[in-house]
C-alpha cells in the first residue's frame, strides 16, 4: 500500500503519517529522513522528529539525494519525510541532480525502487502552493518540480490525503 500524505507547515502530517506506519503489519519500520542539518533550526526540527519516533521502533536512514541508490535490508514498511526537502536537495545540493528534469527523474525512480523493496510506503509531502503565485526564478522552478512530483506520485498512490489540523482528508482511496 502506497500512501501520499500532504499538508502545510505544522498541519500534523508527520504524526498522521507515523500512525499509518504503526498500523502496517510490515516490520521493520524504516524512516527515510531527507532534511540536511544545515543549521540550528534544522537540527532542532530533526531532534523533535527523532523524539516523536523514539518509542516507535523506527530505524532512521538519512538520504538527502539519489534515493534510487538506497537498498533496504528487509521488506518492511517505509516512511519517507519529506518530498519537499528531497526536491530542494536534488535541485540545489552539490550532490543533487541539478536540473528540474533530472531531479524529477531521480525522485520518481527512487520511489519506484522503494516500492519494490517494501510492503507499505508512506511519503510525506508539502502543501506549498496556496500562498501566492508570483515567484521568481529558483523558487518557481522548485515549486514546479515539487508539484510535478506530487501529481506523479498521487497518480501512482493507492491513497492520497491532505492533513488539516491533524485530520486527514482523502482525495483518493479513503479507508473504509
Amino acid at each position: 500500500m502506497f500512501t501520499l500524505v500532504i499538508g502545510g507547515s505544522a498541519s500534523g502530517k508527520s504524526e498522521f503519517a507515523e500512525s499509518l506506519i504503526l498500523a502496517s503489519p510490515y516490520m521493520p519500520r524504516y524512516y527515510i529522513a531527507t532534511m540536511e542539518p544545515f543549521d540550528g533550526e534544522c537540527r532542532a526540527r530533526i531532534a523533535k522528529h527523532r523524539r516523536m519516533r523514539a518509542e516507535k521502533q523506527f530505524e532512521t536512514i538519512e538520504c538527502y539525494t539519489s534515493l534510487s541508490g538506497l537498498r533496504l535490508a528487509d521488506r518492511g514498511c517505509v516512511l519517507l519525510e519529506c518530498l519537499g526537502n528531497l526536491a530542494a536537495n536534488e535541485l540545489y545540493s552539490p550532490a543533487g541532480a541539478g536540473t528540474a528534469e533530472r531531479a524529477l527523474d531521480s525522485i520518481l525512480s527512487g520511489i519506484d525502487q522503494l516500492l519494490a523493496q517494501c510492503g507499505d510506503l508512506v511519503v510525506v509531502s508539502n502543501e506549498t502552493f496556496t500562498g501566492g503565485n508570483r515567484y521568481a526564478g529558483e523558487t518557481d522552478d522548485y515549486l514546479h518540480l515539487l508539484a510535478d512530483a506530487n501529481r506523479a506520485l498521487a497518480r501512482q498512490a493507492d491513497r492520497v490525503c491532505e492533513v488539516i489540523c491533524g485530520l486527514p482528508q482523502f482525495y483518493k482511496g479513503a479507508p473504509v
Partner: protein
Amino acid sequence: MIFITGPLYSGKREYACKLLGCGEAELKGRAVWDVQDLAVQRGDLDILADELSQYEVVIATEVGGGVVPVDAGERARREAAGKLSCLLAQRAERVVRVFCGLPMVLKGS
C-alpha cells in the same frame, strides 16, 4: 467546543454566526477568532488551547500553506499557529473547515 478553520476571508465568522444563530455583536461573547496570532507569543500551547476551548466556537485562519517563508520569525509564527490548530482540533467535538463560504466537516457531525 466547535473549531472552525479555513483560509483567510473564507467566511469563517459568517458561518459561526449562522451556526450559533447570532449576529456579529453577540459573536464576540461566544466565540474567539484570529487565535493563530496568539500562538507564537505563548510558550505553552496546551494551556492556551485549554483556555480557548472554554468558548463555544474557536476560529483560526490557516496560515501554514504556501511557500515556507525565508524569515525565521515568520516560520516560527506558522509553526506555532499550526500546532495550536492541531491541539484545538483534538479538543473540539466538531471541526469545520470553511472554504469559499462552504463548510466541510473534518471531525464530528
